């Protein structure tokens, strides 16, 4: 038989335990949510990077065989939800003595636009 001074001690322990565990579980769920959001953000950034690189390579490919003064066309289809722009929009192969800087901008479905400058030249 338990002594009188022990009365209610287990209840106190159980209540404290429930509070502590609740706090821990809440923190764990918050951390999991943050991790999920971070992983999605990282995946989005990696995909954005791939789209930017695809467009950059398409721009460089378009001048791989051109002659100075000839127009070139960039063949690129942006993935669904993405939009892409190239400046200058209508390309003319540069003189052999200089490179042409082309600025590309890719706007993802969510997040900030990605901007990259690439150089093209007449081979």
């Amino acid at each position, binding site marked *: 038989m338990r002594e009188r001074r022990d009365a209610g001690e287990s209840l106190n322990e159980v209540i404290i*335990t429930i509070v*502590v565990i609740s706090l*821990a579980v809440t923190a764990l769920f918050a951390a999991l949510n943050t991790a999920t959001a971070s992983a999605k*953000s990282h995946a989005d*950034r990696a995909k954005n990077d791939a789209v930017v690189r695809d467009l950059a390579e398409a721009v460089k490919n378009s001048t791989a065989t051109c002659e100075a003064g000839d127009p070139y066309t960039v063949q690129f289809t942006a993935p669904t939800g993405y939009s892409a722009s190239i400046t200058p929009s209508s390309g003319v192969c540069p003189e*052999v003595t200089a490179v042409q*800087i082309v600025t590309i901008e890719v706007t993802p479905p969510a997040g900030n636009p990605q901007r990259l*400058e*690439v*150089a093209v030249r007449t081979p």
Partner: protein
Amino acid sequence: MSCGFADRPPRDGDHGAALLLAIGFVLLVSAIAAALAALITSSTSNSISLEEIRNRQYAADAAVHDAITKVRVLDRSTPPTCGYQTQLNSVDIRVDCENAITVLPSNDNQVLGQRNIIFVACPDNGTACQADEVIIRAQVNFEQRFDGAVTRTFIQSWSVNR
């Protein structure tokens, strides 16, 4: 005389066990949370460096192409010294080069000198590119007419190191 122990009430075997379990649980959760925090930090750091690497590589790419156009118009009798500095995507790049002339026999038993140049691009820190700093190393062939004018350039090798 009392030694103290005899005055204590007998303890239950599971007395305080719930609290110990809770503390253990909290420690476990803390470890998981710490691992998640490390994962998040690592992911964020990786994604930032992904963009930095892309900007650096395309800046180096542009710098090498720029150097090719500059070397193209040089007199072939003078080996290029390069050391060209450019900036693109907010990255400063230096391009050094060295002559790698090769000699080939032609169909009519003449000797043809092939003008090949090795370009190396690295972050510009004011000194010549060191081997461990090289971002792009490219060997380019400059096809020339007899009068020395370059008719076309050919990339013989192009390696992106970092």
